[in-house]
């Protein structure tokens, strides 16, 4: 595969053809914040926190570094005022869902995001898709997926598969930047194994009674 040279934050960077801007930047130690990126998974471009400015032929566009392929002779900027503003707004929007997520709190400090800017919608899920994609691509179990769309989009386990596969695995748990995944799993657990739900439920409405 041929190599190409591009400029990132004023440095000449050599990248393999087909590599993304994020990979090219990481290869020389330039860090770009990410939430939905995982080295074992296909690029997704879901969170947009990795937005960077790309200048080519005199035009500057904002693109997601994790999906945009590195090109010859382009100038990439990873830290500008405009990008800080974009990342700040993105973090603020995600914090309406998960205000106490560690990763988001870190990013909020860095970009001065106000966690109370938008009205709370505590779904806890920021739709990074890490759990869904990890299960599909790495584990190939397809135990959970997204359902619905837009503001109602959420993750949902397939009870039959989850009851068989998830107990021994749970590898998606540490990937989740919030606690939404664990919550969804506990919910599914209550559906698939009513007896355990009965013990943990203090209201006396456990199934099987």
């Amino acid at each position, binding site marked *: 595969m041929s190599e190409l040279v591009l400029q990132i934050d004023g440095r000449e960077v050599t990248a393999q053809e087909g590599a993304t801007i994020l990979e090219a930047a990481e290869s020389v130690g330039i860090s770009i914040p990410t939430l939905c990126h995982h080295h074992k998974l296909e690029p997704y471009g879901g969170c947009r926190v990795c937005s960077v400015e790309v200048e080519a032929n005199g035009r500057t566009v904002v693109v997601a570094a994790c999906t945009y392929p590195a090109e010859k002779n382009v100038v990439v900027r990873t830290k500008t005022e405009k990008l800080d503003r974009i990342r700040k707004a993105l973090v603020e929007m995600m914090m309406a869902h998960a205000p106490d997520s560690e990763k988001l709190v870190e990013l909020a400090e860095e970009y001065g995001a106000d966690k109370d800017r938008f009205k709370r919608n505590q779904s806890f899920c920021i739709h990074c898709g890490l759990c*869904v994609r990890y*299960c*599909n691509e790495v584990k190939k179990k*397809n*135990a*959970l*997926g*997204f*359902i*619905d*769309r837009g503001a109602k989009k959420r993750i*949902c386990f*397939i009870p039959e*598969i989850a009851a068989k596969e998830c107990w021994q695995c749970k590898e998606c748990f540490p990937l989740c930047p919030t606690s939404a995944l664990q919550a969804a799993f506990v919910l599914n657990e209550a559906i698939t194994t009513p007896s355990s739900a009965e013990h943990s439920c203090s209201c006396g409405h456990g199934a099987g009674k």
Partner: protein
Amino acid sequence: MDIGRIDQIIDKHGCKASSLIQILINIQSENHWLPKEVLERVSERLAVPMNQIQHITTFYKSFSLVPKGRHEVHVCMGTACHVRGAQRVLDTVEELTGIKPGETDVDLKFSLETVNCIGCCALGPVMVVDGEYHGNLAAGQLEDVLKNYE
């Protein structure tokens, strides 16, 4: 809906994963909804995982995962229909069928939905039953229109 008919539909489309949506549309239009057993069969035949099928069937509003009536009634609530009395039409349809938007009656005869515009504003207020357009409706005509559907 029996498995044989599902297989027929799947085979007609060449049993390809890329035909998934077309297959689901065909099943939906014949059966009016997509039961779980049907989706499991489609998933098995096309080798498309269930979580993807679930994603697609919940994404598009034209797919239903709950039983629907034999006749689908859509009342347009778009701006033009709204100012020409769509609310009265909807209220009367609700009264005649005994169901609210998004619901299906116990005999599986009618399912009622509201839509935001069906593109023929000059006919407002409009109601569509099984793809048949009824325009310039007055609340008093609705009983006669709905009587024609069994």
